[in-house]
């Protein structure tokens, strides 16, 4: 019988903390500066320079720890991790080995079927990033950019609790959401603000023992993570089923070729010669510091989702999608609130706002490749638009056109009502006006009237079309339908 394999995955996520300056120097952390222009004497390890810990990085790590219910170390220690590489200026990385700042915690992973599973987090520690080696563009040489050297990282290490590539991607995504809610990371994956290493092994289903694992390095998107794991699992199954053994090694995922390949084997175990960093004192974190972090925690994604379901009567699915991104949630809530304020009697405002945010608004952002906080329509504008649709003042179709023109205008001062009025977009719902129109259409098209009355139901669309044409689409479709039916039924 064919062996059923179970996949076991643990993730190490490197989160670049959103501090203004580097973790051990005062150098700016702004992304995208020309190479080596954000590299101070400390960052390039000139002789005699010393690290000084950035308190903001400590605060962010503690905030994370509190959010995952972890124990915060009263005293944490920085260590030197020693290895030579041209983009590592000191010849060692300052990291935390034995006494990390954040101890064991957990998150509730939400699965596709709506159930949740606890994923244990082993620890999270502070460390500095290395610079970048640029292997292209230098004709056989390697360029070194030290702007990234000394950027603050929080490395979040999970237990091997994940079982599928989908779960791994969902966990990565959920962490991505969490750190942005906590405002400790900008979450820009394409700028390397979050990178992930996956430890992957397989074992026969039901086995309690772990198989030999490989480490997949530097995965910076949810999709790459999922695909890299899928490939690696397939490769390991093939190795084992053909009688081979999986070697402990570090592998690199190549998204262009969609494969993983050996980076280095760990047969000769790396010896990083960790020892306590003598240039930094152990960091004492008192209860008051931790309590302040706890007291100032923002509403977390789960809490927000539950609130949307309970107070906005949204579906779990919509609430989840809206709360995935804190900026989207913020936009949504402002839109929904202003819609409700304009149209209090309209109970469906939150639902209608959700449809608009998840529909046209998200589509427009995607189309223009803009992040939510660069929306060309303000939440107040969208709220008003939603309110006017909800009240029946404008039709849904007109609203879509109006949304597009608002988006194009990119003018926060543009007023939805003024536009409706100026462009004469108000829906025609007036019974007398519509009745007169219907009478005229019926009178003008005796042939079509006869066809309809002879049972040709399809011709009904012709009359709707005529009415919409005459009102430039502003006729209230429901009222129009009723009146047309009435007029056409009676000979």
């Amino acid at each position, binding site marked *: 019988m064919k062996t059923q394999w179970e996949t076991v995955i643990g993730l190490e996520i490197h989160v670049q903390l959103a501090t203004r300056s580097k973790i051990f120097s005062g150098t700016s952390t702004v992304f995208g500066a020309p190479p080596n222009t954000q590299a101070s004497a400390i960052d390039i390890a*000139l*002789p*005699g320079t*010393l690290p000084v810990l950035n308190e903001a990085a400590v605060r962010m790590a503690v905030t994370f720890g509190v959010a995952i219910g972890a124990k915060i170390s009263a005293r944490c220690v920085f260590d030197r991790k*020693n290895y030579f590489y041209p983009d590592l*200026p000191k010849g060692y990385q300052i990291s935390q080995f034995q006494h990390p700042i954040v101890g064991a915690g957990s998150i509730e992973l939400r699965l596709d079927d709506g159930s949740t599973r606890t994923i244990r987090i082993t620890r999270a520690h502070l460390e500095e990033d290395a610079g970048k080696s640029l292997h292209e563009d230098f004709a056989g040489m390697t360029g070194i950019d030290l702007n990234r050297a000394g950027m603050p990282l929080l490395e979040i290490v999970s237990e091997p609790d994940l079982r599928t590539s989908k779960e791994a991607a969902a966990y990565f995504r959920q962490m991505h959401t969490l750190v942005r809610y906590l405002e400790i990371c900008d979450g820009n994956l394409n700028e390397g603000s979050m990178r992930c290493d996956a430890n992957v092994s397989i074992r026969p289903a039901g086995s309690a023992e772990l198989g030999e694992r490989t480490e997949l390095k530097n995965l910076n998107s949810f999709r790459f993570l999922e695909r890299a794991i899928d490939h690696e699992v397939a490769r390991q199954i093939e190795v084992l089923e053909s009688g081979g053994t999986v070697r402990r090694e570090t592998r690199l995922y190549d998204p262009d070729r969609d494969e993983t390949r050996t980076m280095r084997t760990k047969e000769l175990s790396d*010896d990083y*010669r960790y020892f306590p960093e003598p240039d930094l*004192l152990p960091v004492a974190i008192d209860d008051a510091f931790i309590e302040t972090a706890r007291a100032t925690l923002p509403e977390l994604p789960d809490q927000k989702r539950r609130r949307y379901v309970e107070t906005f009567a949204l579906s779990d699915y919509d609430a989840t999608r809206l709360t995935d991104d804190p900026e989207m949630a913020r936009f949504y809530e402002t839109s929904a609130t202003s819609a409700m304020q304009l149209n209090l009697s309209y109970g469906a405002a939150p639902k209608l706002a959700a449809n608009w945010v998840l529909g046209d608004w998200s589509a427009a952002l995607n189309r223009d490749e803009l992040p939510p906080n660069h929306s060309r329509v303000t939440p107040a504008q969208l709220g008003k638009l939603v309110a006017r649709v909800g009240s029946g003042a404008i039709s849904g179709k007109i609203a879509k056109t109006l949304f597009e023109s608002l988006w194009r205008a990119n003018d926060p001062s543009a007023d939805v009502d003024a536009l409706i009025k100026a462009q004469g977009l108000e829906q025609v719902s007036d019974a007398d006006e519509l009745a007169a129109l219907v009478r005229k259409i019926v009178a003008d098209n005796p042939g079509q009237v006869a066809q309809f009355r002879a049972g040709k139901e399809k011709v009904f669309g012709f009359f709707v079309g005529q009415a919409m044409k005459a009102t430039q689409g502003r006729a209230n479709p429901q009222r129009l339908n009723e009146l047309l039916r009435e007029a056409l039924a009676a000979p």
Partner: protein
Amino acid sequence: MNPFGNPFATLTELADSLRSKQCSSVELTRFYLDRIERLDAAYNSFITVTADRALAQAEVADARLRNGTAHALTGLPIAHKDIFCTKNVRTTCGSRMLDNFVAPYDATAVARLDAAGVVTLGKTNMDEFAMGSSCETSYYGCTRNPWDVERVPGGSSGGSAAAIAAGLAPAATGTDTGGSIRQPAAFSGVCGLKPTYGCVSRFGMIAFASSLDQGGPLARTVDDLALLLDTMAGFDPRDSTSAVDGHAGHAARTLHDAKPRTIGVPREYFQLLTDPALAASFDAARRTLERAGHRFVDVSLPHTAAAVPTYYVVASAEASTNLARYDGVRYGHRCESPKDLTDLYERTRSEGFGREVKRRILTGTYALSIGYFDAYYLKAQRVRRLIRDDFVKAFETVDALFAPTAPSVAFPAGQISDPVEMYQQDVFTVPASLAGVPALALPCGFHQGLPVGMQFIGPHFSESALLALGADYQRATDWHRRTPAGLE
């Protein structure tokens, strides 16, 4: 005697000359620059002389002296050990690796002295990366002892000590990791203070062993050390190990605070002192101090014998990683046309570092390696704690400890070739380094025409009390006023 024109005048005396307008800072600076130019070929105490810069600083100092904004040290010329980074002036650390290195910043200790108006004559010779007890490991050649040029001046701050002894500078900075201020002070017949760890900022001071390195002054008298320390010491936000409430900066004002002290004589030190000729000097020093009203008691520091091996594990371990940055990639020496990355590393470091530095890197790397870490590094850290506890316990009953500075007088250059024998030079100095406590080294006699040095070791941040005790001793003796023959 008018101190100006006397190369062996103290800072205190020279400051009086400047204030009473007997001479200007420019004249004083020229005087020392001229002596360096004429005489230093025999001693090799300077690696770099900064004549133009010194004269420019002296002019500014003279202006301050004229307009009444002068500090106690304004206009006084001194030298810096070439381990302190000096903005726009080469800092070599005695190594080929940094032969071309110019820092874009001043070490905090240098900046503080500069701000006080001190004039920098130049950068003094030292053992490479401060690893040595004789100044023989310098890439720039050995410094010679002004008392006998066939002998070493001690190390690693040998250039600073020799420059003072030869009257080429009235004072200098040094650093002490395991005795590098105190032992050269003893060999060269000058005074030196290793402050409490955390007292003087390590920023801009090129690291040897981060948990031990401490900058401090060398000078002709204890009074001068106090003047310098008061300016050099202080909290520095750029050094995380710098003490917030360290040295209060009033040592120069409390030098006459000659309270009768209880002084401990650690029996282990004197058991290790095998040369009876030196013992006579220490006995005489004791009698002098007793006459001044101080009381001696026997104390025990049981872990003294473990200090040298402990020190060489801890210091080498830290050094092995502190020196990893010298890789030929960003600054410093780089080998010619490397084949690949490994070749770049190997040849750069093989060429750039001398033998002793390589030995320490290898020793330290070994001590930190998997499988040896517990047996060496961790064990050394545990022993270090015991050594520190010895001192803390001793200071429950005594105000200070009295000890030899070095096991012998200055030895001839080239005499000690066995590294382990060389390490034994540090037997009386490394315990205080490991404990992080301050120690004051000062001359207390002569043996065969060569200076003999003693030290007072005190509790953490007791610099002022140690200096007051030393000043009391120097008021009763004149060993510190002796000068080598033929140098006036």
